[in-house]
């Protein structure tokens, strides 16, 4: 649930409240996120983990790291499922925290040889080039988008864009694109003509249309091939050949926060980490 546009504070792109449940986890999560694109970090917030049976607050934890990490891992999961087996060059468009998280996670899933980085803020590109996530790769700091996309097998877009910047003319046979920017109404990275030329997989059909890459490009649910869970379960096929273009659009789902928060909580209990507070005292 996002605050209505008229109630969002100046300088913020959104205020988000997301709750998640996963079968088998005896807790639910509530995340409050404030998105200030000009801030550093741009996203700040808290995740509250509640007991599923009683509602008692089990834990309160910082949410931006957890969100960046789980988003990176889900993006890499989508790319690993959909990208060609021999894909080795990745283009990162948008070199902020999420661009770094995506590159780190992708390198855990796939063996990469080169990364091409482009960000509207050149300093952000340089920071990612110097980050451990880029170590050992052939790094290109691209001067523009076309230079970044040239020769890329996997493209990851993680921007705040409200207008599409990847069009049909940018696509090459066998390319895979993971688009992460569109996570609220009004955001868009890939134009409709490019999406319609691709096999589109999303994390959630309804959200992809309501506030994700599909709806942001003006398309409906009929443009979507499958959800990631269907590909993982084998009920829908993923990539069918080395020539087709695939797109994974991830809005980010609240159950991913819960999975991460629950893992952190259980490990903290095991290791005796964190501080405890009785809010009712």
């Amino acid at each position: 649930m996002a605050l209505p546009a008229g109630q969002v504070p100046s300088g913020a792109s959104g205020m988000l409240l997301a709750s998640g449940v996963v079968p088998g986890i005896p807790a639910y999560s509530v995340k409050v996120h404030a998105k200030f694109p000009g801030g550093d970090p741009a996203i700040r917030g808290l995740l509250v983990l509640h007991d599923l049976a009683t509602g008692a607050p089990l834990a309160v934890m910082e949410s931006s790291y957890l969100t960046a990490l789980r988003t990176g891992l889900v993006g890499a999961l989508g790319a690993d499922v959909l990208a060609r087996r021999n894909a080795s060059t990745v283009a990162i468009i948008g070199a902020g925290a999420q661009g770094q998280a995506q590159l780190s996670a992708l390198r855990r899933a796939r063996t990469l040889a080169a990364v091409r980085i482009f960000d509207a803020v050149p300093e952000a590109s340089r920071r990612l080039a110097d980050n451990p996530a880029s170590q050992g790769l052939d790094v290109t700091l691209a001067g523009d988008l076309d230079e970044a996309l040239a020769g890329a097998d996997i493209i990851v877009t993680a921007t705040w864009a409200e207008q599409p910047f990847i069009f049909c003319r940018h696509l090459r046979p066998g390319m895979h694109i993971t688009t992460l920017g569109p996570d609220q109404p009004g955001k868009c990275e890939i134009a409709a003509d490019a999406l319609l030329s691709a096999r589109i997989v999303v994390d959630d059909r309804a959200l992809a249309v309501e506030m994700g890459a599909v709806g942001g490009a003006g398309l409906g649910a009929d443009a979507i091939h499958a959800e990631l869970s269907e590909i993982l379960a084998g009920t829908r096929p993923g990539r069918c050949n080395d020539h087709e273009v695939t797109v994974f659009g991830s809005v980010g789902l609240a159950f991913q926060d819960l999975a991460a928060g629950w893992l952190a909580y259980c490990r903290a209990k095991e290791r005796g980490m964190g501080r405890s507070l009785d809010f009712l005292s």
Partner: protein
Amino acid sequence: MPAIRVTAEISRLGVALMARRRNQSSVLFVIEQVRRHRCLAAARWLYTSLMETLLLTRSELVELLDPPVLSGALRMAFAA
């Protein structure tokens, strides 16, 4: 505290915690904590688990969230 009272306290708190969590892994977790901490320490741990909220900072999360393990948890959550 006499051993008999400590045992009763552990039992009371352990049952309450198990009732809250309602799954086998949590029960096993409680048993492991009782075994590890014994007597009063275990009782205190159970009491804390029941009554208090755990606060975790970013640096603690960096230490706690192992990417390969979380990736597996996310894959399972997608399949659930």
